[in-house]
């Protein structure tokens, strides 16, 4: 697991308690535990907005620095929601500042949905059926193998990567692309992918 070795007594504290401890005592340790709790989500938001893992990684740390200051300046009612807005705004500002890809600017209202997640939701392969099998056969060999292992044999990404001696990220990419291709294939066949389950 990715969980760090922070003490369990702090890990078990609620968001409010950790934030209070930081505001009252200036305990960065408490704030660190609190931020760590949501940091993978913050990183995900930054990835979505910035579309650059390097920049997203830097932004996660910059947001933490900003957090250490702002958490004491503002009265925070709901830390989680406040952190989301803070992170999103920070990354949007960073994007505006960098302007490496001006056309990639994402307005907050457009962030609500992204095609990748829809693909994932609509093509869920619960059990083999005829049109799905046909589309599955049209996938390239490695995508087909990854999809079968993941959906039919219930292997994890890591397990598939070990079996096929591939990188974890590559397996994840094959499954994601295979899923998207399946959706396209099924739509061509006149089958709504949501009918599959």
């Amino acid at each position: 697991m990715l969980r760090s070795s922070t003490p369990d007594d702090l890990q078990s504290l609620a968001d409010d308690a950790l934030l209070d401890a930081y505001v009252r005592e200036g305990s960065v340790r408490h704030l660190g535990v609190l931020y760590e709790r949501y940091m993978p989500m913050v990183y995900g938001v930054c990835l979505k907005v910035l579309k650059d893992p390097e920049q997203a990684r830097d932004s996660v740390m910059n947001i933490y620095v900003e957090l250490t200051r702002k958490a004491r300046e503002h009265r925070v009612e709901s830390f989680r929601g406040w952190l989301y807005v803070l992170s999103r705004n920070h990354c949007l500002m960073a994007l505006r500042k960098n302007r490496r890809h001006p056309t990639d600017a994402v307005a907050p209202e457009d962030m609500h949905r992204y095609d990748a997640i829809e693909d994932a939701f609509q093509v869920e392969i619960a059990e083999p059926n005829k049109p799905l099998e046909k589309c599955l056969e049209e996938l390239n060999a490695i995508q087909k193998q990854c999809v079968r292992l993941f959906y039919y044999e219930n292997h994890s990404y890591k397990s598939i990567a070990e079996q096929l001696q591939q990188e974890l990220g590559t397996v994840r990419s094959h499954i994601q692309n295979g899923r998207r291709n399946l959706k396209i294939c099924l739509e061509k066949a006149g089958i709504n992918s949501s009918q599959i389950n």
Partner: protein
Amino acid sequence: MEPALYTEDDRFRALLERWIDGDVTAAEERELFRLAQNDAFRQAALDGYLQFPETDHATVVRELRTRVHRPAPTKFQIFPWWMAVAAAMALLLAGWWFWPTQEQASAPVAAVEEKALETPEQIPDTAPLAMRSDKPAAAPPPAPAADPARAAKKSKPDAPLRDRPDTPIEAADIAAAEEAMSAKPLPPADAAPTRSAPMTPQMPAGKAAEPQKEKAAPEVWWQDLQRYLRTNARLTPEARNNNISGSVRLRGRLQPDGKLTDITFEETLGYGIERQALLLMQGFNWPIGKDTLLEIDVRFVR
């Protein structure tokens, strides 16, 4: 916040951790996606990861966790040693750089004038014609007596200048100066003065009728002029930025109505200093009733 949301959020974060690590199964991934649909934060976060399926997110997240728990998370909390060294080096360099400039500022006018003569004149194109010294540097001055007088002056060390108030020159003065400068054309180089006032060695003797008498007793207004120039001659910011200092020499005709006209520059420094000198000429209260050619040095030092 509702406890149910906390529960869902905890579950989502746990599943996200598994997804990042690659431990997630198809059933867990389905649950992860379902939970993401209920909340904007979760959905945005998952969308971000799905955009980069091949990236090794686990390593990045692990590294970020380590960094978050470092003792000094804020920027600039510690002054790094290399910044201290860099600052010390910068100070040393600045000291070395400005040392010769100070010497130059206190050098005799002769040395500065020689440098100024080598420097091409830098007068803006918009300057009046009278400001441009079209004459060659070696052109004979209208008053032959000026050369020995200048030589005598160069051999003397400069007297220390008084502290000068930092008085800005008003915009109205600039307009007045420009108007005055364009009022009359440049006189011929060998034009004979109607009357010269050689009250100091800087004054051209010209073909004056009674030069010896006036040399012996400098007039009060001339002394006032020198004091006025010492007090008000200020370097322009451009000159200051370029470490320029020294003297400009100008010639002009003092009219009976108390105006200085036909001003030409014999020696210039550029960087807007000539313009400052013109403004100074316009700002002085010249005596009335004289008709004289003048040669005036204006010192601009730090």
